[in-house]
Structure formats: C-alpha cells, structure tokens
C-alpha cells in the first residue's frame, strides 16, 4: 500500500516537470490532487487497512498531498514568471520615439520679465502703480522739470498727437506725479498734513519717436520706481538698487553708479551691473566691457517733489527706471528688439 502511494507521488512529480501551461497545470491538479486522484482514492480506502497500517499510510498520504500542493504552487509561480518574462519582452517600446506633445500656453516674455521685476520689488515693499499711455505735456514733461523748449526734451523724442499738448508718454514717470498727488491730497484737493511715504513701481508701455531697428523700438515697456520719505538718502538708492540687482541677476552681482542727467532727478546716475554671463571677464554680450548698463536713477528733484505735493525741505526720495525688454535681451541673448512685438510664435515658445 505504502509502496503504491510512493509510486504515485513519484509519477505526479515527474508529470509536473512536464507541465508547460496553466491549462496543463489545472489538468495535473485534478489528476493528482482531485477527487478522482489516486491519493483521494487511497484515503477513501483507508478504512480497509489494518489498524497498524492505517496511521502510517494516513500520515504518508497527507505528507504526499502537502508536497504535491507545494510543488504545484512552485510550478505555478515558475510558469507565471516565465509568462511575464515573455510578455515584457514583447511589450518593449522604443523609448526614443517622441512623446505626444501637450498643447500648452505661455506668457509673453515681456510679461514674464515684468512679473519677475514686480515680485522682487514687492518683497521690498514697492507696490505696482499703473497710469495712462496717452498723457499731457504737463504730466509727461512740465511737472517733471522739463519746461517747454527745454534742451533736456531732446533726450526723449516724442510722439505728439493731433491734440495740442497731448502725447504718447515717453516714460512712465508721469505716474510719479500722479501717485504723489494721490497721497498728498484728499479727493477734494486739500493737502494732507502728513502724507504717507511712497514706495511704488510704475510699469507700462512707453513710446519714442525712433526708427524701428534691431536696437530701437517705437514702443517698449518701462518700469520706474519711486521711494519718497522723510529720510531717504543717495546711499539708500545705491543699497536698494544693488539689492534689486542681486535678486534679479544673481547674488554675486556687483553694481556701479555713474553720474548721468535726468531733469527729474538730481543727483542722477546710471547703474551698471557686472556682466552676469562672463562675471566681468568680458564677453560678446557686454561687448567685452565686463559691465552692462541696466537702469537710470537718481534722487527725486525738489521741483518734482513739490509738484507732487511733497515739501522738498521735509521729504526726499529716489527714483529709477529700467527696460524689461532690454533686461530680457541681455538675459536671453536676444539680438533684435523687434522680435518682441513681431510675436513670431517660434520666438515666444522658447520662454
């Protein structure tokens, strides 16, 4: 009896070796472990055995059953592993084929640059103040200390409109007067005793009467800044603008200030930064000078403070102005300013 069941075990295990698919595995299972299997039959016949034989055969039968089941599981795992292996190989992709493009939008490079400038100044407490594109001669020039027929007007070639004394603003500086007056006067025009200090940036489109070339445009964005308070000094201008430059162009950026002239500031300066591409070594972008001209700035002229309603004997301030397109050109190596308003999507999609 014992011999018979041992023989059955050997045959079953041999047969399992030959099993090659799940179906065969099922067949093997019913043949060797199912109701009609030799093992089950043996168990049914157990009663017929002698009381001495019965526990021995019973125990052995149980052992064999466990072993066959374990072998079955192992074989199933083997077969599954082999199947996955085979299908993985078949499912292999050419990973170098291009991915499916997603249609996505982008901001115009000028907007991106403006936002970066806004964000940096916002952290320093400078809020955005916007004003109109079409301006009066009074706001664009006279109140900013450019009297009529003053030679300083030659620095800004102006688009005049067919309405006398109405022009396209040549800079966003008229907003300086507007923001100062908003702070310095009540709505009914009464001067306030102690107007708030001011920290604003004034972004917007400006216009100059110039030939459109790779280097000059008739329209361009400008971001001006204005800080007015009771104790603002030229050293604050240097410190604040240098902080801005470090945020905008990198923590190691060095600045320098050269004397310049703007009628609405005095003293006036141009700020250069050490070229961020070559670190001052000299390269194509900085024309081998090592420095890049970034913005104009200066202490607010007393006449301008007074025109804005701030007493120049009490208040002082600084102002600055920069061109986002110029900054973007430097940062991205753009050589032709006309690309900004041409809006060739192949250009815009690179940002």
């Amino acid at each position: 009896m014992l011999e018979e069941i041992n023989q059955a075990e050997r045959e079953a295990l041999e047969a399992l070796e030959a099993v090659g698919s799940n179906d065969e595995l099922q067949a093997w299972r019913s043949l060797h472990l199912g109701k009609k299997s030799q093992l089950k039959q043996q168990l049914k016949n157990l009663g017929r055995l002698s009381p001495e034989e019965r526990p021995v055969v019973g125990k052995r039968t149980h052992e064999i059953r466990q072993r066959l089941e374990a072998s079955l599981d192992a074989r199933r795992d083997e077969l599954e592993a082999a199947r996955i292996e085979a299908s993985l190989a078949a499912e292999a992709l050419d990973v170098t084929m291009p991915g499916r493009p997603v249609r996505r939008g982008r901001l115009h490079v000028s907007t991106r640059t403006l936002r970066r400038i806004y964000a940096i100044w916002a952290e320093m407490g400078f809020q955005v103040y916007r004003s109109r594109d079409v301006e009066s001669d009074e706001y664009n020039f006279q109140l900013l200390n450019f009297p009529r027929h003053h030679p300083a007007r030659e620095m800004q070639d102006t688009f005049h409109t067919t309405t006398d004394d109405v022009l396209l603003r040549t800079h966003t500086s008229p907003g300086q007067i507007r923001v100062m007056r908003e702070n310095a006067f009540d709505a009914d025009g009464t001067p306030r005793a102690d107007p708030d200090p001011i920290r604003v940036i004034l972004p917007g489109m400006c216009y100059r009467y110039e030939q459109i070339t790779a280097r000059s445009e008739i329209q361009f964005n400008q971001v001006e800044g204005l800080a007015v308070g009771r104790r603002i000094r030229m050293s604050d201008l240097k410190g604040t603008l240098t902080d801005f430059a470090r945020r905008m162009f990198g923590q190691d950026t060095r600045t320098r200030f050269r004397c310049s002239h703007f009628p609405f500031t005095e003293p006036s300066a141009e700020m250069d930064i050490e070229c961020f591409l070559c670190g001052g070594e000299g390269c194509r972008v900085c024309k081998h000078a090592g420095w890049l001209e970034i913005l104009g700035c200066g202490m607010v002229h007393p006449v301008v403070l007074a025109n804005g309603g701030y007493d120049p004997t009490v208040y002082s301030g600084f102002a600055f102005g920069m061109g986002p397109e110029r900054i973007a050109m430097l940062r991205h190596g753009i050589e032709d300013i006309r690309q900004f308003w041409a809006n060739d999507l192949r250009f815009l999609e690179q940002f």
Partner: protein
Amino acid sequence: MKVPLRWLEDYVDISLPIEELTRKLTFAGLEVEALRYVGLPLPENPERLEAKVAGLEWDPETVVVGEVVEVRPHPDADRLVLADLRLGTEQLTSVTGAPNLFPYRGQGPLAEPLTVAVALPGARLIDSKTGEPRRFEPATIRGTLSAAMICSERELDISEAHEGVILFGPGSAALETPEPGTPLADFIGDVVLDIAVTPNMVRTASIVGVAREVAALTGSELRLPSLDVEMTGPPTADMIRIDIRRPDLNPRFTATLLDGIEIGPSPYWLQLRLLLAGMRPISNIVDLTNYVMLELGQPLHAFDYDVLVERARASGSEVPTIITRMPDPGERLETLDGVDRAIDDFTILVTDEMGALALGGIMGGGESEISDSTTRVLLEAAAWNFINIRRSTQAQQLSSEAGYRFSRGVHPADAPRGNLRAIELMRQLAGGTVYQGLVDVYPQPHHDSVVEMPFGEVERALGIEIPREEVIRILEALEFGALDDGDMLRVTAPDHRLDIGEGVIGIADLMEEISRIYGYERIPETQIEDAIPPQKGNPELETEEAVRDLLVDLGLQEVVTYRLTTPEREARARKTGSEPDARPFVELKKPISEDRRVMRHELLPSVLEIAETNARRDGLAIFEIGQVFLAQEGEDLPEEPRRLAIVMAGLGERGNWSRGEPKELDFYDLKGTLDGLAEDLHLEDCVFEAAEHPTFHPGRCARLRVGGEEIGVFGELHPRVRAAYDVPFARVLAADLDLEKLQAAIPERYPVHGISSFPPVVEDLALVVDDGVTAAAVESCISRAAGDLLRAVELFDHFRGEQIGEGKKSLAYRLTYQSDDRTLTDQEVAAVRQQVVAAVEQQLGGRLRS
C-alpha cells in the same frame, strides 16, 4: 564734444593714464563715448575703456618728420615733381603729384625748407583711394625711384583731405618744429576724447570746461587762457553803436573791432586742432571764431565791418548801429548756409538800420559775412535766452554749433571773455590793429545764484559725511565761491554756469556737484530707514494677471502687439459694408511710418494680424490683454479701457506619429476655452447666447453675459472677414471681451461643496426635442426639474436623423444624482427621472427617446 588731449593740456596738467582719465570723466558725468588715437599706439584692451576706440598708429621708425629742401621737375612727367627730403642725416627723394609743392618747383634749394610728414618703406598708412590701411613700398614712378612718400591728411587718417600734402609751416609756440627724423607721433600724435555732453553740462562743450572738470577730479591746477589784448587803435565806441530792444532775450552784446587784417589760411597747428575737434578750417578769422568757441564755449560772430558801414551810409548814418530786436512781420533773411528763411515772430534778430543781419545766437546772414577781401572785422560776442534760441532752432530746423551752445545756456559773463580772447588771437594771426575798448551793452546783469547750504545736508542727502575741507575744495575747484560760515556754507555759483538754482533746488544742484566729483563709488550702500508705507491691495492688476494665468493654463500663448495702427487695418476686422467706428482716434501729429499712425481703437484686429504673421503654422491659439484708446468728447485725454482678445485657428494640437489626423479647431474649442475661463474665475450667472456682430459668422457668434452684463462676443470669423486676412485656415475663431467688465464679475470669494461619502447614481437620458430648442434651455429645464439631488448634467451626445424625425434632434445627457446624507434608492432616482421627463415634455415639447 571732441577734445584733443594736447589742446586740453594747455589748461591743465594731466598725470593720469588715458584709461584712468576716461574712467574718471565718465563716472563724473562726462561720458567719454569714443577715443580716437591719432598716430599714437592704440591701447591693448580697448574694450575695457568702454568707449569706441579707433585710430591709426604711426610707426615711429617709418612715419617721421622730414624737410623738403628742394623741389625739382620730374624729367618725364609734368604732373609730378621730385621732392628732395632731409630726415636727419639721410637724404631721400620722393616722387609726388601734390599740387601744393608745385609752386616750389625749380626754385633750387629752398631758403626755408618745408616741414612735412614722411612715410618710409614699410609704413602703414591709409590708402587714399580705398580708404583702407596699406603699407607704403618704394616704387619707380615714370622712371624715377620714389624712396619715401610725403603724406596728406587722409593718408595719416587725420582728415579726408587729399588735395595736397601737409605743410606744417613755420614753427610756433603751439607747435614747435622738431628735428627732421623725429617720429611724427612725437610731433603731432594725439588722442581725441569724444565726450557726450548732457543737456545740463553745456559748460563742458568747451576745452576749458573739460579742463576745469579734469582739474577738479584730479586736484590739478586750472590755467585759464590770457584775456590781455593789445589795443592801439582809436576808440571802438566811435565806430559802432548797439541797441538791445529785448534784454530778456538778449541780455548782453559786446563788440570789438580789428582793422587791417589779411585773410588767409590759418597756421597748421590751428587747422589741426580744429580738425581734431571736428571742424573744418576755412580761413584765419572764421577759424578763430570757431577756435575760441571750442576753447571757451562762447560762440562768436565776425562781421565784415565795411559792409556794415556801407549799409549805414545807405541809410544815412556814418556809424553803424547794431539793433537786436524781434522781426517785423514777413521779415526774411538769407543765412550763411544759403537758405532764404521766413523768420518766426519769436525769433530774435541781429539787425542794423537796413534790416536783418543774423539770426541772433544761431547763424549769420550771407551779406555781412567775412570774405577774402575783408580788412576790417567787427567781432560780436553776445548772450541769448536759451529757451528762445532752442525754440528758434527747432522752428528753423537749423542746427549750428552756436545754436547748440546758446540753446543750452551760455553765461553772459562769457561774452567779453570770448570776445577779448578771439580779437587778440586774430590780431596775432591775421595782423592789424585792435580798436580801443570793448563795446559792452549789458542792460540786464545776471545774478549768480547764492545757496545757503547747511553742512549737515551732505550727510542727509548723500548718506555719507564728506569732510568740510573736501566739500569746499570740490566747489572751489569748479570755481564756486564757498564761504564757510559755521554750520552753513554760503556758496556762489561761478559766472560761467546758469544751471545752479537757489534754496532747496540750489542745494540739490550742489549735492550733484559734490557727489559726482567726490565719486559715487565712495557713497556707501544702505537700507531705507523709513518705515514701509501702508500697503494697498491692487485687485485690478491681480485679477488681470489671474486671467493671463488661466488662459495660459488653457493652452493659449500670450502675445503683445503694437498699440499704434491705422483705421484701415482695424476696418479689416469688420465685414465689408458695416459702419466704421465713428469715435475719433488718438492720432499722431507726425507718425514714424504711415502704418503706425493712430492709437488702436480695438484689440482684436491687432491679434488677428499676429495670426497672419504666424500663418505658416498648422495652428495657433493666442491672446492679448491690453489697452485700447477711445477719444472722449470734450476731453483731451482718451479713455484707455483694457480688453482681452483671443484668436484660435488651424489644428488644435500638433500632429504626432501615434495620433491620427489632428482635428481643426472650431467654435466649440473656443467656447470650451471660455467655459474653462468662466469656471476657473468662478463667474456666477454666466450666460452664452446667440448674437450677431459684423466681425463674425451670423450663425456662429455668441455673446457672453455675466450677471446680465455683456462681457463680449466671440465666434467664428465671418468668411469675408477671414478672407481679409492672409491666413490659410478654413476657420478662424476669435473672442473680443471687455476685460474690465470681466474683472468686475469675478466674485471676491466662492464656496466649495463637501464631498459626499454616499455613492452617486449615474444615469443616461436621451431626450428628443425640436431643432430650435437650445441645449441651454434643455439643461436648465433638467436642472430645475431634478432639484437638489442632481449634482451634474453633462451633454454627451448630439444626434439628428430619420429615426427621430424631421426637425428634431436628440440630446443625450449623463445625469449624476447624489445625496449628502443617504444612499439613494432606485425609487428615489426613478421619481426624479419622472419629474425630468415630465418637465421636458411639458415645457419644451420634448420626449424621452425610446
């Protein structure tokens, strides 16, 4: 202002290397834009100078000073001569065709050898024909060896002149003749600084003005030119009378008279200085008016005195009278440049009793100008109101060196200085006798500003304490008077500057002078001590930027276009025959080009033009946010409302190997974009309704209303509008929205719904309705009928066909029901469905599709 260094050194010692001098000047506000090396070696790293650097170096070995000792005829050529040269011990012969050597031909050895510039073999010069550098090599010309070349200005890159060779003439104090063989660069080599003069610094449009700055910046002494004149003639006052009618416009007029001059060319040193400073030498008298203008900054005008006398006699007087006055109506003048000019009523004239002689401070007239036969010169140096001069130069579109300076402000005290300096130089170089005394009419003496400046102001304004001695040194070096009065400095503006104010403005003016000379780089970097001002919200900007972000999220590319356009370009976006916009445009008085002559009325046409620019692409989806400009009745300044325009066309996505043919964008792609925008802005009561608009296809145009307010229109362009644009797309979708109304419709806050933990029930419902019933009507009917349990309605199919009958359509909706507090039973859902179907039947005449 072109400043030759050798000339500058007449007035100030320069100990700094040129690179350092350039840097100091630039940082102090005298930006050195360019450096021209005349004969001297160019710097090794010119880029580091941050100025344009150009020039030709004269090799000291091969470009030298020589003497022509004899000029002989060429044996075989009439148009050539042989010039025998002495260069130190060496003797060479040059074959040359220089016309200015021909007068010396055949005279034998010259009693006075001619000093010339000589190029020896190997010398690098400018080829007079090509203008390119070329090496000189000896050559046999018509059988005679030319071993050296006598140079013209063009060959040495001094000027364009090539009519003859340079003849230096006899030596003078300004230019001592060196030994033959001396390198030419040692003799006349120079560096010319080209300084950009800002409008407030016209005082530096003169060599002495620059020298003063150099002196202040370097601590050197300034040497002003002598104003002594040898006056031996009769009194000038008997020879000329001056009548100033408008002292406000002509505060001062001075005159001197020189008798017995001989007009001729200027000595070479003077010609060279003028050339390097950018002016063309003409003749001694004219050259000296220019020379002194460049030297001191005071423009001068020389009259032929005998012409004035003749005119005076013609009008019955013996003594000419100069009258400065406003023009008579219709008065004209032919100026030196040959233009016959109508004079504007605000332009002040220099006249005599016979009429106009000159545009005051700008340009002289032709009749009284110096000619070759002039023997008596009346020299004018005057002061003019700079605003008036600028206005006149602009009106006449006339730029002159005098007008340039006078239109920026020349101090009246400069007039006598310029006059005396020039008349003495004229006497020395053109001969003659100067009449006694300067006639000086100065009815309105200028008051030089006095500024009371507390010393503490320096720290308060600049953020650095500059020692009091240094403040005073700086001001005095710039020729301010500086009186130390305890805590106060009493400063008087120098009598060559009109740009210094008084009071608080004067203090600001002084701060500029002190800080720029002290050096901006020495001012520290500090943080603002004032508190940050109260911060204010800026919803207008924030929501505008939010709209930009959402449109970008929805796959649109932002564009920024020109705000200048033409009415015709805007009209393209309207169907032919529709009424043009009647409001006037903001129009440029003088556009730079005809296609940018008005400020735009509308945004959409500008964005449509960008679709044209990108017509080669398969598709595009773009938007712009920006102002339009609407002139207002009775107002000078226009309204500037901001608008939003969207344009979509072509393929919605790029083709790809794994996708089928991409679909062309249509109305519903644009609608979906606007749906997305409305959803993400959480707009409430958002209604899309069919609309008509001249830009759009009449059956494919919709209006967007939010809370009843019209936000804008959108749709597919009318085929005739589309045809007006050069685009290859069958359909172009566009939206034109009022951004400000859209922003106003954005709720400040919006609620969100909790997520129910009970399962939703989803069921599909196909409804058949008449074709004329809109999807919006069906959806709103369903929503109202279904009540609170309905969480979502989604149209997922649209069908027309025989099965459902003529004039009908089937709309299939997926309805999602859900409760927050229980699992819905089949009966509850069935009841809702019954209500929905009943409502569709009763209200819309529809039915459930079987």
